[in-house]
């Protein structure tokens, strides 16, 4: 059958069960949009106001739904605007498919209008890039892109299509598409029995085991296996930022987040452990501090689906290249078959004691509304399945420290790249994925101002998420560092006159409210749960409010600062 490149692309996307595309059209993608026109019933297009937001929306959608999110942009500036969003997805192993238009084949390399080498630009921040040179390649490329994005360690894939390829008509059948990649095998995810035996040996021999769960546990859908394993071993569970939600944070074995802004008890327990069972995490610097100071007194079992993560940052005593869920299930099975089950011990008393010991340390010193208290109010007001996204900076770390996540895929944040502006568009993608679930974006004023123009998208497309702006009129995290490490020499962190966020929301046709007290905050949150339009809740807080505790840069996990 004769098909145009555009039609083949649309057919191939539908074959991959794509329901929604986030994007902005432009000169080089006009033929693609022409094909979308007649498919708008079963392939929804959400028109973003900035391509960066389109990419973050696709990412938020992917993380909530667990399937690839698709975004699209035209060539040149459209494509380069996607870059931050693609890089976020890459750092956090999120399956995002980016489709970019390119100048016609005859003009490539000639510095044509709106030409950018997006394949060159995106190669280091994607799992793969697929530059298309003929329409007949499209069905296979789409199949390859979805396969790569959603298997093994997940990640973004970019497909770059020249304009004349969109209109080229050739005989092809999207149903017969084949992906031909000799260098890529989809892993079974099954752990090696020998490594499981070795790991079990270490576990049985350990006195002070701790589990550190990362985003891989969530990507693998392994929360159930994690809880079973932890309960059998009575081993406490700390999570990385990306791992938040891997275990319900109200679980008696949950310690919360470990790392630079981790909870005191989590950092202490990880530092005191004699066995660290790291699952689906990559020992990032923000999680472990200086590599030479980490895990000195402990053995390490490292479970990850990506073999390159084993030994990259930290040397493991037992490497297990496997899917998190399958590895945890195998460990549990092996331990249970040996009749190994732990009871209360010195160690279980120790971590309970630490949890109690630190509970009074989380008092917040600054004047005015305290972010930790706000997070508790929010948690109490929201159902367990509510989804929370964050900006980047203090707002993100306060949420990570104080907002207890109860289910996987309900805490969405830019962990690896730390891209300010992520929270709001990610909340829109999340809401599109789960329209009946409340979605809250906890943001900072600086962060929100980077992507707030997509309130226009939220209003026009009817995507009612709620944004809580922790409004301190400053770039708070940098300000905090300047306070703590630069003798209060505040350099370029004062945002001066920030907009009236309530009025800003109204200007877009959203609802805006500014609150001054905890009671007002609570009622605004509860009201917003019933709102049909997007809501912005402006919450003024002190410039001097700090994220504490903090492990200062270069220090080990035990060298926590509680006051600043």
């Amino acid at each position, binding site marked *: 059958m004769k098909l145009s490149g555009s039609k083949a692309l649309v057919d191939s996307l539908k074959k991959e069960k794509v329901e929604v595309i986030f994007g902005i059209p432009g000169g080089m993608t006009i033929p693609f949009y022409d094909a979308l026109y007649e498919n708008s019933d079963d392939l929804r297009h959400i028109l973003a106001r900035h391509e960066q937001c389109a990419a973050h929306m696709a990412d938020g959608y992917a993380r909530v739904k667990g399937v690839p999110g698709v975004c699209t942009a035209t060539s040149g500036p459209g494509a380069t605007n996607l870059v931050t969003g693609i890089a976020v997805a890459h750092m956090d192993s999120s399956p995002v498919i980016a489709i970019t238009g390119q100048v016609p084949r005859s003009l490539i390399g000639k510095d044509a209008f709106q030409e950018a080498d997006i394949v060159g630009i995106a190669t*280091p921040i994607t799992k*793969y890039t697929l530059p298309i040179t003929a329409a007949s390649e499209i069905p296979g490329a789409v199949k390859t892109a979805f396969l790569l994005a959603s298997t093994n360690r997940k990640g973004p894939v970019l497909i770059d299509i020249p304009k004349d390829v969109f209109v080229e008509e050739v005989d092809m059948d999207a149903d017969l598409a084949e992906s031909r990649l*000799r260098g890529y095998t989809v892993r079974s995810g099954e752990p090696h029995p020998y490594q499981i035996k070795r790991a079990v040996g270490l576990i049985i021999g350990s006195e002070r085991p701790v589990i550190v769960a990362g985003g891989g546990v969530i990507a693998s859908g392994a929360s159930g296996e994690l809880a079973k394993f932890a309960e059998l071993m009575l081993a406490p569970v700390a999570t990385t930022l990306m791992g938040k939600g891997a275990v319900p944070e109200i679980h008696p074995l949950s310690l919360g987040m470990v790392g630079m802004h981790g909870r005191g008890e989590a950092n202490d327990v990880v530092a005191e452990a004699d066995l660290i069972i790291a699952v689906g995490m990559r020992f990032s610097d923000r999680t472990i501090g200086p*590599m030479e100071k980490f895990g000195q007194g402990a053995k390490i079992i490292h479970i990850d689906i990506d*073999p390159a993560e084993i030994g990259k940052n930290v040397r493991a005593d037992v490497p297990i290249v496997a899917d998190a869920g399958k590895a945890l299930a195998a460990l549990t099975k092996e331990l249970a078959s040996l009749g190994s089950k732990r009871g209360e011990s010195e160690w279980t008393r120790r971590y309970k004691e630490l949890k109690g010991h630190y509970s009074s340390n989380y008092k917040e010193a600054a004047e005015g509304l305290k972010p930790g208290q706000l997070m508790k109010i929010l948690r109490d007001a929201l159902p367990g399945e509510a989804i929370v996204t964050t900006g980047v900076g203090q707002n993100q770390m306060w949420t990570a420290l104080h907002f207890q996540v109860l289910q996987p895929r309900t805490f969405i944040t830019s962990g690896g790249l730390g891209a300010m502006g992520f929270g709001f568009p990610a909340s829109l993608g999340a809401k599109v994925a789960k329209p009946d679930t409340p979605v809250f974006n906890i943001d900072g004023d600086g962060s929100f101002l980077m992507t707030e123009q997509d309130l226009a998208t939220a209003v026009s497309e009817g995507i009612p998420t709620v944004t809580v702006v922790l409004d301190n009129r400053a770039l708070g995290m940098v300000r905090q560092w300047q306070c703590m490490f630069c003798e209060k020499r505040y350099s370029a962190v004062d945002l001066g006159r920030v907009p009236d966020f309530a009025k800003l929301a109204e200007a877009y046709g959203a609802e805006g409210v500014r609150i001054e007290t905890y009671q007002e905050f609570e009622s605004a949150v509860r009201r917003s749960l019933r709102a049909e339009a997007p809501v912005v809740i402006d919450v003024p807080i002190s410039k001097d409010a700090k994220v504490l505790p903090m492990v200062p840069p270069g220090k080990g996990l035990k060298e926590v600062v509680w006051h600043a």
Partner: protein
Amino acid sequence: MRDRGRGRGRDRDLHIIAALVEDKPGVLFRITSLIRRRGFNIDTITVGNTEREGVSRITFTMLGDVRTVEQLEKQLGKIPDVIKISELAPGEAVYRELALVKVIAQDPVKRADILNYISIFRCRVVDASKDSLVVEIVGSPGKVKAFQDLMRGFGIVEMAKTGIVSLARGSKGTVPPE
């Protein structure tokens, strides 16, 4: 107390890594981009086609500890265009490089000396003018380096090297057939 950040082995050992990759546009870019991005320090890199249609062979050499080399292999292995990657132990592989050396040879006495060295090193003259000689030398990197050091004394006008190519010893291929 162990430092988990550091690698094993001496950090100046020679490692030879062979990769079979798809012979298509952009593959070399993906590979060099990764090497640069992750800060690997490659000594030599050679690329050429193989006995198999559509498959190129890239040979890297690098000086580094075992852990760094393992990381390079694993990271390269993640590129979908890399079909197979393996390290060749120097003791179990043959490896050669080729150099062309243009050396000043004006003075008849020195010219005779150079020709003498050429015969000792079993290399050959591929071009000659009254003032200079172009010498082709093929061998292990050590042999090529020794010859280069000798020629430096006479004055090297310019020199070009291919980098190292390598095959495993014995009848087995680096990569089993598909």
